[in-house]
């Protein structure tokens, strides 16, 4: 085969995404953050109030694998908390 001769690319094996459909991952609802000094952190005790960086009107963030993928308002679903999605990143 001459060096100028082109070789046809090997067809790539593709994984059928449907095989992943049953894989489970955790979607986590985070309320917000707060910055504390170590002194303040170690002084926390029962009844202490930690104020977060969110207003009451702000929504919770939904994290997937450490990345915020959606946002929503906190709701009650029966006896449990829930998050109604108001904003979600494209798939």
């Amino acid at each position, binding site marked *: 085969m001459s060096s100028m001769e082109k070789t046809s690319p090997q067809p790539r094996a593709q994984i059928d995404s449907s095989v992943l459909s049953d*894989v489970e991952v955790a979607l986590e609802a985070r309320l917000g953050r707060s910055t504390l000094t170590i002194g303040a952190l170690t002084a926390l005790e029962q*009844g202490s*109030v930690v104020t977060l960086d969110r207003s009451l009107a702000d929504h919770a963030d939904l994290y997937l694998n450490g990345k915020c993928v959606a946002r929503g308002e906190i709701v009650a679903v029966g006896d449990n908390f829930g998050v109604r999605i108001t904003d979600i990143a494209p798939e």
Partner: protein
Amino acid sequence: MSCRAWLPDAALTLDRISAALSVCLQEWAEAWIGDAVTAAQVQFLNASQISTQVGRVHAAGSATTVSSEARTKRALLEALLGTSLHGHVFTERDHRLLDGLAGRALEDLVARCDRLVGAFPAPAATARIAILTLRCPAGEIAKLELPHAALAGLVKASLGDVRSKPMSISSRAQALGEATVEIEAVLGENILRFEDIAGLAVGDVLLLDRSLDEPAQIRLAQAGVVLGAGLLSRDANRVALTIN
């Protein structure tokens, strides 16, 4: 691993080395001579560069060596005897006696210097030697050899009382207490299949694994370490957690 004091060579000046040895030299001078003895010059040589001369007297200790060559021995003896030797004629026996006297005086000087320098041990393989030229009013009397590696400790020790006032040292607990960390509050989670996540859309409600009367989890944002839990509350218009 052993370590020893260190100073840059530029800091090992004649004045500083002299000051470090001053008490030792002064005490020796008072004991043997009655006049002041000072270090007049310092020279740094490798051990291999040091030559010995015939007619010298010398005394070697564990760390230091002192010698007086024929040229300087006369001034040393005049200082020791407190009289000029000019015009005297000495027999061989006189020479031996005078050499003995000079040798004893130098042995005492070496012993004193060893006690001082021995507090700053130098590696056995030290090759550099500091040579101090010792003088008294009668002239140059001897050369004192010190291991260069011991000089930094010697000089540093003598500088102790002229150190600048250091800043106060804070406790580690106090310093750490002022460091900040970021914590995050996690209301809950739900385990979903890939397929369900792909299908999520605005308006969907994600049910969390936390009941309404359960506290939210508080954890270190960076490390993810769970610190505790707190019930959802408010602080003015802000979301807050009350630790329980």
